[in-house]
């Protein structure tokens, strides 16, 4: 060992460092194509395809009874579901690639996670707002003139604007943080971690199913879903979202990206 003295970090005048949590937040938006441009382009494409299909349907359905049938059927639309899957992928990429990248910038795991979570919450709010506005326009224009439903499906997008916004927001948060937790397990334990995680989830699901069966609890489970309704069930997803968010942090806190 040398007898060298240790230099303090303030050993020379340096420009003030930015808040690194905010820097990480900005890092997720340095290239807006993936997080903003591409999703809206996909959305526009699906919308135009839907519009064409609605036009074709309504030009071929003539009787009033059939029309009512079609209108009812169109409310079961999954056209905007891709947004949620897409955001899960965004989260996976952020943890799997942006995290090791940020480590090269000497960002701590804590700063990375907080900055990233902030970005995900912001993106959720942004997309929830966009989807809410579109659902209101859909209502106001009588389903874009064709009784179409893309943003006002039976799953969400009914009720006053703040209910719609909340449902979209909560579902987006769920998509982001579930993606985050899975990716964190992968970054920390690679394929073995994923296998173990899926095995654990399978066991848990089977065990819960068995429990419900053994205790004759299925009617109660059904009743719970009925009681809560779609909106209630979506709100309850906040529980797994929070669990995933905390788990993601705890897993990533001790992770070292390897090749």
């Amino acid at each position: 060992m040398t007898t060298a003295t240790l230099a303090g970090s303030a050993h020379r005048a340096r420009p003030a460092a930015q808040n690194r949590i905010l820097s990480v937040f900005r890092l997720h938006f340095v290239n807006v194509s993936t997080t903003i441009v591409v999703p809206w382009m996909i959305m526009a494409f699906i919308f135009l395809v839907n519009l064409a299909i609605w036009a074709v349907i309504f030009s071929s359905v003539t009787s009033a009874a059939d029309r009512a049938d079609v209108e009812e059927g169109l409310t079961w639309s999954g056209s905007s579901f891709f947004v949620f899957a897409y955001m899960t992928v965004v989260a996976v990429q952020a943890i799997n690639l942006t995290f090791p990248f940020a480590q090269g910038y000497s960002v701590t795991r804590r700063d990375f996670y907080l900055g990233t979570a902030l970005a995900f919450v912001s993106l959720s709010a942004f997309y929830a707002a966009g989807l809410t506005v579109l659902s209101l326009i859909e209502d106001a224009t009588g389903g874009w003139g064709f009784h179409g439903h893309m943003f006002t499906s039976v799953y969400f997008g009914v009720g006053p604007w703040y209910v719609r916004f909340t449902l979209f927001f909560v579902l987006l948060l769920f998509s982001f943080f579930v993606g985050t937790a899975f990716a964190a397990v992968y970054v920390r334990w690679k394929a073995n971690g994923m296998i173990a995680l899926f095995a654990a989830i399978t066991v848990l699901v089977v065990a819960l199913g068995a429990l419900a069966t053994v205790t004759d609890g299925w009617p109660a489970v059904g009743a719970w879903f009925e009681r809560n309704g779609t909106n209630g069930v979506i709100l309850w997803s906040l529980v797994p979202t929070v669990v995933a968010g905390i788990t993601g942090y705890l897993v990533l806190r001790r992770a070292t990206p390897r090749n």
Partner: protein
Amino acid sequence: MTAVVEVSNLSKRFGQFTAVDGASFSIEENTIHGLLGRNGAGKTTLMQLITGQDFATGGSIRLFGESPVENSRALANVCFVKESQKYPDDFKPRHVLKSAPWFFPEWDAAFAERLVADFRLPLNRRIKKLSRGQLSAIGVIVGLASRAPLTFFDEPYLGLDAVARQTFYDRLLEDYADHPRTVVLSTHLIDEVSNLLERVIVVDEGRIIIDSSSDDLRGSAVTVAGPRAAVDTFVAGREVLHREQLGGLSSATVGRLSEADRTAAARAGLELAPVSLQQLIVRTTTSDTEWSQAS
């Protein structure tokens, strides 16, 4: 001398495998260090431990006087350029150059621009589509332009051609002269960088086997060549690091020689030649016998 990093009795195990084994050394402020050793010697693990990316099994690390693990304040002084650096899927070099200043307060954008021209780095191509050399160029540019008080280059120039590597050495030296800082260069191309290095740390099988100034190290061994009998006589009783024979001629690498030794060698008709840093390290890391610390 002031140390920016102090490592003592550091160890890191992965299951049964010991990647770092009781390492103790320091990294001096405003000095260019070479962290040398064979593949798998533990160089990258050491740097990952110092930068808080990996977690030690035992021992201690002080980075600017503090533990590096999850320590924003200490890590804000550090830039770590890795050969295998990953980038977000959709990134182009311009996204790296745009975001880097948010993390490195001393970032010099004009210098970065000049380096981009030097290395002919296409700014608007997906990083996924870049050649190996261009990928390395991004890392080198970030490492230099960030002007972090402590910069690690881990095999920074895989795929860079000779011209680009020379450019890297030249720019590093120029910028280092104007903006003194601490640099740790981990590389296989020892002879290419030997003139840059002020201190040399050699790792082998997770242990620090040399920790010395490069001047001391260069003088620490000499090759003695001449007729076999004369060489045998001269090296008798000395530790011989390496030996080669060709017919009646022989050469042997021995430790530091005194003035009297040199005179005696000349009188015996032997030729003395300095040993290059690369040869020295090759010889100390291939033999089983451990080479005592050169300093």
